[in-house]
């Protein structure tokens, strides 16, 4: 599904302004991966980790932030010239991923599990560490952002065999 993509400078400017806007509106740094913990806490109430600390209050802004993102993607797709439809194409990844449907699904679930586990172990995801942490010049965030990028760089090169 093709969506309209702005020029990189304009999109970067807009996302930078979004980070500032989020600070001013919510008074807290923006973050994505923490919200998945809220969903886990709501799904399984017996895990004590999702009842303490930052997860004491589960129905919070982080959860609703996460729920809002698909709506934003939907608006973006609906305002693109191509009509909205489900599709399973992954562009360049179609050639290198497992060719069967089940193989692709297992591959994606495994990759997603690494994302979820790694994000919690590192404390934040690309948004929290690289984007917002980088904007605040927070040393651990800069370190994490660099490792995110290097690790993904090597993985992609291994996958595409270059």
């Amino acid at each position, binding site marked *: 599904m093709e969506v309209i993509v702005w020029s990189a400078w304009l999109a970067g400017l807009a996302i930078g302004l979004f980070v500032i806007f989020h600070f001013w509106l919510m008074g807290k740094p923006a973050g994505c991966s923490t919200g998945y913990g809220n969903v886990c806490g709501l799904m399984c109430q017996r895990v004590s980790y999702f009842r303490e600390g930052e997860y004491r209050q589960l129905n919070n802004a982080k959860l609703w932030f996460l729920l809002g993102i698909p709506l934003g993607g939907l608006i973006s797709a609906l305002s693109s010239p191509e009509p909205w439809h489900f599709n399973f194409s992954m562009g360049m990844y179609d050639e290198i991923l497992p060719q069967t449907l089940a193989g692709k699904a297992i591959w994606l679930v495994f990759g997603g599990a690494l994302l979820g586990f790694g994000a919690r172990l590192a404390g934040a995801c690309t948004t929290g560490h690289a984007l917002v942490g980088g904007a605040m010049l927070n040393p651990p965030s800069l370190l994490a952002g660099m490792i995110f990028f*290097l690790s993904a760089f090597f993985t992609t090169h291994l996958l595409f065999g270059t």
Partner: protein
Amino acid sequence: MYEETLFLRCRNMLVSFFFVYRTQIFGLLTGVLFGFLMSRAGATTYDYHAKMFLFEDFQLMIVIATAVVIAMIGVWLLKKTHIHAVATGEEVDFVKKPYQKGLIIGAALFGVGWGMTASCPGTIPAMIGEGKVAGFFALAGILIGTMAYGILQSHLHLARQQAEQQSTPSKDTD
């Protein structure tokens, strides 16, 4: 005796609803904006991720570099003006993520996941909104991974508590 008209009652209800759920409403609205921007920036298109790491197209790299520089200037300005946040009414809290044990290993695992799925936790919901079926599987994976971390942490916490309970009475007998 003061009587509320229907219009006033509805207005008051709306105002109190908005006030009580203001953090949720703000969260939802910022989420919609974030998803839209991620989609327009090309972060939900798989090819841009692959091309960025293969150094064929610098779209996403320029996006994140520009965004960080703009946000850096904004954060500096916000700190200077001691601005108050809309949702809380308190001064903006620039809380920084601390260094935590396992950050390096976690970041390395995250990078492998990023390379494998060409998406990150912020873009996967936006991909689902765009109708990309691959996003559903990646979302299931993220929830499994987060759940695994939570269960692991809960067990470690419990084990630590039990170890402390066992060690304290033995000290008394010594």
